[in-house]
């Protein structure tokens, strides 16, 4: 009883002398200074009620509720929130997100917006050159001309885009008299080089492909450069992937055949971008 009397005396004392009110403190450091007695979610430092409901709550553990009598987070609301006068930014990379029950956390824009994985720099993507030939309907492919690996931490829409230059198109023996009039083929495949376990795709499977027919019977002809290009989006689960850009030639005749060089020009492109699937 004497303790409570002391508290009251302090209360009145401070009220008169400093115009400050302390509740459970003899030395208030604010106009109204409430010191809670407990430290958990079951007890309250402050509540403000209307005639019918609890409007505002400060638990002893520091959680504040607006319209929530037992707030479960530092600030817990149940209705509309209006924040007028927020600043604008063009550079912040964290957005606020809410889960299904309203818990607010941040999410990096890198998990929301398209990201560059490979290339997308306008530079030559293939710095080596490979020359391959084909005859008698046996296609020939470049080997390891351009291989790129990337790791997705989340399921993503991955867009592949390539342009591969082919030049010096001539007979398989290197003859420049490529004059048999037979339609031969120069092409590119984008293939899976390695895949995460359990992938629905298989190694060496084709992602996208393109090919041109090439035939000539004139003594003077343009033997390069042609660009085989393609672009395709694919939804991929998380994991580490490796893809190979592969050039190929194919001739059905067994006389002149075809030969061509891949990668020697400076405008080869290979770009991979990805956006997390939402």
């Amino acid at each position, binding site marked *: 009883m004497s303790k409570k009397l002391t508290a009251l005396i302090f209360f009145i004392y401070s009220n008169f002398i400093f115009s400050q009110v302390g509740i459970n403190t003899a030395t208030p450091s604010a106009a109204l200074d409430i010191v809670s007695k407990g430290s958990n979610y079951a007890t309250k430092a402050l509540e403000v009620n209307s005639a019918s409901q609890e409007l505002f709550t400060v638990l002893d553990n520091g959680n504040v509720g607006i319209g929530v009598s037992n707030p479960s987070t530092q600030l817990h609301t149940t209705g509309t929130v209006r924040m007028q006068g927020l600043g604008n930014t063009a550079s912040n990379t964290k957005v606020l997100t809410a889960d299904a029950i309203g818990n607010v956390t941040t999410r990096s824009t890198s998990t929301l917006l398209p990201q560059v994985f490979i290339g997308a720099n306008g530079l030559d993507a293939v710095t080596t050159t490979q020359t391959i030939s084909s005859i008698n309907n046996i296609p020939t492919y470049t080997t390891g001309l351009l291989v790129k690996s990337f790791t997705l931490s989340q399921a993503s829409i991955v867009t592949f885009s390539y342009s591969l230059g082919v030049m010096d198109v001539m007979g398989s023996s290197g003859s420049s008299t490529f004059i048999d*009039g037979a339609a031969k083929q120069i092409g590119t495949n984008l293939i899976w080089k390695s895949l995460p376990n359990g992938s629905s795709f298989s190694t060496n499977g084709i992602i996208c492909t393109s090919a041109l027919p090439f035939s000539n019977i004139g003594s003077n002809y343009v033997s390069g450069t042609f660009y085989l290009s393609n672009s395709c989006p694919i939804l991929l689960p998380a994991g580490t992937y490796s893809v190979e850009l592969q050039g190929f030639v194919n001739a059905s005749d067994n006389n002149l055949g075809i030969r061509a060089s891949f990668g020697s020009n400076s405008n080869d492109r290979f770009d991979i971008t990805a956006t997390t699937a939402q």
Partner: protein
Amino acid sequence: MRNFNWYFIISMINSCFLYSQIGINTAHPSAMLDVVSSGNTTKALRINNSNFEMFTISNNGNVGINVPNPTAQLHTSGNIRLSGLGINTINTGVITNDLSGNFAIRSTSTLVPQIIAGANGTDAVSAIQTLSSTSGIPSYTNNLLTRTFTITQTSMVNFSYQLGIDNIVSSSGTNLTDGASKQIGARLTWKAVPSGSSFTVNGILYTDAVAFMNSSPNYIKGFYYPKGNCSFVLPPGTYSVELKGYVYAYDNVQGIRATFGNSPYDRLDITAIPVQ
């Protein structure tokens, strides 16, 4: 001691002695300080400095920080700092605000690219159609591949396709040996558009063609892949597109014949991003 209020003091003393808790307008406080609005004013609590009202609790439950008449459950007028927030990589509800500062959740599905069709790296055309052309009359596949989609907001829609063509021979099925340049192609056309659309049914979104010529007994008859990639801003509505292969020969002797859809690598991928 301006605003001296005997009731306040009495209830304060009362609760102080009995519960060591303070009640304002209540004899049974359930917190260290328990304020029950009298209902005589519109506010249950105000905190002021000498210049302005810093903190307000209205009787309707709205709380204002530097907003004396809050219009939302929490209404502030300046910068907000929420330090120590967790980080996630999956939540699809983005908190956005309007010009008045009202917060609302916006789904990432209305903010970032969405797959409308395909984009699965698998064969998009399971049927096969063979076409022939002679005498300058082109010939087109019919309903080889149609995709229908609905967008609920104006969106930037990206179409990407490749269509495999093989068995390139003369219109009668013999080897093509006349040395005439003929055409094999694939185009994406509008099959249905919403009423009032600026596009017309059968209009072309994108088209691509390859020149094919042979004069030798032995030649490569396939696969060739006419392809396309294009973006359109489209108003909301239901759209249908058809991927059409075609052949075209000018001569009236050998002509051209080719098969569409035989390749396991046919693709038609449609993605969309709502226009912001």
